[in-house]
């Protein structure tokens, strides 16, 4: 084994590097700078490659959505530039000649109702798990989390029967009823984390000031947890907008569909693909959600760390 230190002992003064020894200082400076420049290069390379890999299909979708047919359907044409003048025709087709706007509207109001139900049910439950003293709160929290592990793929067949019994097949309300089974467990998990992050002293002060537990929860805790709640609203909404399997199993009539199933099932008719309009739909939906998500990213991160204490 090599000796642990190669630097002669006289260059150290009390464990520090002897600053009077100019050569040694320069060597360390050079090493630091080399590391910093190397690190920066690697950092930017990875960042650029990752950004291109992730966003590539969308950039390409955006380009394609304005292409005329002869441009798109010529094998030799460069797919990344306009070989023929671009057109707005396919956007017009998507927005006015298909039911896309109906799908978008369905997605929005299903999302709104599901998020409302999720908060109404999940917020008190998360508070109970985070704060109220119970023997069985630990196991119950894990049990609720485990519900998340029973995915739609496992339940869609019996769920179709349940929805049929409520006479909701082919009705968007079926989604309003069933989607909270997906959003509630995840939201409770995130919200428990946010609520644990609120210092206990604040509500205890409220209790001392004469608030009841219920009042303290409604008037003190909920306003304080508001940033976390906003994150959960966006998260739950995204989950409902993404859901595919239940929607595919429950809905077959066009006016009831959401974006998630409407676009792939209505804009692809057998072997006929409305390619540019499909790509337009992808861009139209992807960008706004990604923007909102990006603004809230920090909150999701603190939600996932679960109860990271913040002052």
């Amino acid at each position, binding site marked *: 084994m090599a000796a642990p230190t190669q630097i002669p002992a006289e260059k150290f003064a009390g464990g520090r590097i002897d600053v009077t020894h100019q050569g040694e200082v320069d060597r360390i400076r050079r090493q630091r700078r080399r590391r910093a420049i190397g690190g920066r290069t690697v950092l930017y390379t990875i960042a650029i490659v990752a950004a291109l890999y992730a966003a590539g*299909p969308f950039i390409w979708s955006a380009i394609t959505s304005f292409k005329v047919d002869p441009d798109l359907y010529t094998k030799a044409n460069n797919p990344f530039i306009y070989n023929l003048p671009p057109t707005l025709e396919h956007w017009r087709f998507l927005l006015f000649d298909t039911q896309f706007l109906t799908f978008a509207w369905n997605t929005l109001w299903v999302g709104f109702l599901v998020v409302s139900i999720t908060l109404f049910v999940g917020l008190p439950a998360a508070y109970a798990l985070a704060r109220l003293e119970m023997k069985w709160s630990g196991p119950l929290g894990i049990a*609720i989390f485990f519900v998340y592990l029973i995915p739609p793929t496992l339940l*869609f067949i019996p769920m179709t029967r349940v929805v049929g019994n409520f006479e909701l097949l082919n009705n968007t309300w079926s989604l309003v009823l069933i989607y909270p089974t997906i959003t509630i467990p995840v939201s409770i998990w995130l919200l428990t984390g946010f609520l644990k992050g609120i210092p206990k002293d604040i509500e205890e*002060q409220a209790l001392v000031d004469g608030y009841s537990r219920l009042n303290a929860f409604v008037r003190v805790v909920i306003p304080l947890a508001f940033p976390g709640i906003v994150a959960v609203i966006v998260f739950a909404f995204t989950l409902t907008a993404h859901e595919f399997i239940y929607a595919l199993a429950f809905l077959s009539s066009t006016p009831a569909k959401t974006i998630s199933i409407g676009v792939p099932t209505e804009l692809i008719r057998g072997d006929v693909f409305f390619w540019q309009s499909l790509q337009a739909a992808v861009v139209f939906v992807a960008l706004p959600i990604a923007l909102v998500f990006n603004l809230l990213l920090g909150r999701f991160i603190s939600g996932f760390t679960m109860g990271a204490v913040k002052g």
Partner: protein
Amino acid sequence: MTPAHRADEVGTVAPDTVTRVPEPTPRPQLARRRLADREGFLAKLFLLPTVAYIIGLVAFPFVLAIVFSFSDVTTGNPSLDFVGLRQWRTILGSRVFWTAFRNTITFTVISMALIVLIAHVLATVLVKDFKGKWLVRFCVLLPWTTPVALAAVSWLWLLNSIFSPIDWVLRWFGLIEANMYYLGRPVLAMGSVIAVHVWRIVPVATVIIMAGHMAIPGEINDAAEIDGAGFWRKLREITIPLTLPISAVAVLFGAILTFADMTVVFILTRGGPTQATQVLSSWAFFKGIEGGDLAQGAAVALFLFPLLLAAAIAILRAVRRTEVM
């Protein structure tokens, strides 16, 4: 309730030792505090809707799935007649089932390995400060925030047999002569499905792992740097051990999303070519909803449960042991 808790609640300046806490004096408002203040009651009230929802719309359908799998129910004949293990025997005897089972495992294991690796690299980069970080974060999040079905449609064209832009690029560089037919050849089709999945789930895993990176106290890294530790040393001895539990959470989330997902398969390949990309969830859908055989569909879907449960328990245990959650 222990004296310590009550002391906390009335806001007594609680000393560190429990023994010295005096009994709290009765509060003047005590008369007003009845139901709204009883913790046990409130807790039950607060949890009741959740528990009711889960029992009614998760536990009940789950039991129904089990009942279905022992019956001969189809969409044409909705009455439940008990047929014992017949459906299970049919499924276990079918070749497609074992293909789908193998595919599900291959698909999940390869995707997860790639996802965790890429997510760690990306998380390391994205917690640093650099110019244009906002744009990079935005781009990286896009695959996650787009509905899966739409993202898959975008990929369907990228992998098109004739007009694939990927093929165009490869041809342009002179790497291939003819097109690749990504979705037409068994191995390439599986590779494509895995690639799309990795692309889609890496952002979620990255966000979760970033949480782990940020939770490492800055002093630890500073101290290590002062002691002369380089990037790899810090990675091996600080970052990896300290982010292990949160990585487990990312794996758990990612595994559920990959394991139980059929959207990508449904849109890209519909299980083809010749069942090469058929997974349990997509096969359950084709059998149960499109084929109308609810009993067999339910039985196939139920196969996912023990596997998911085992993975979840293993991962939660790993997390508990490291005591970060």
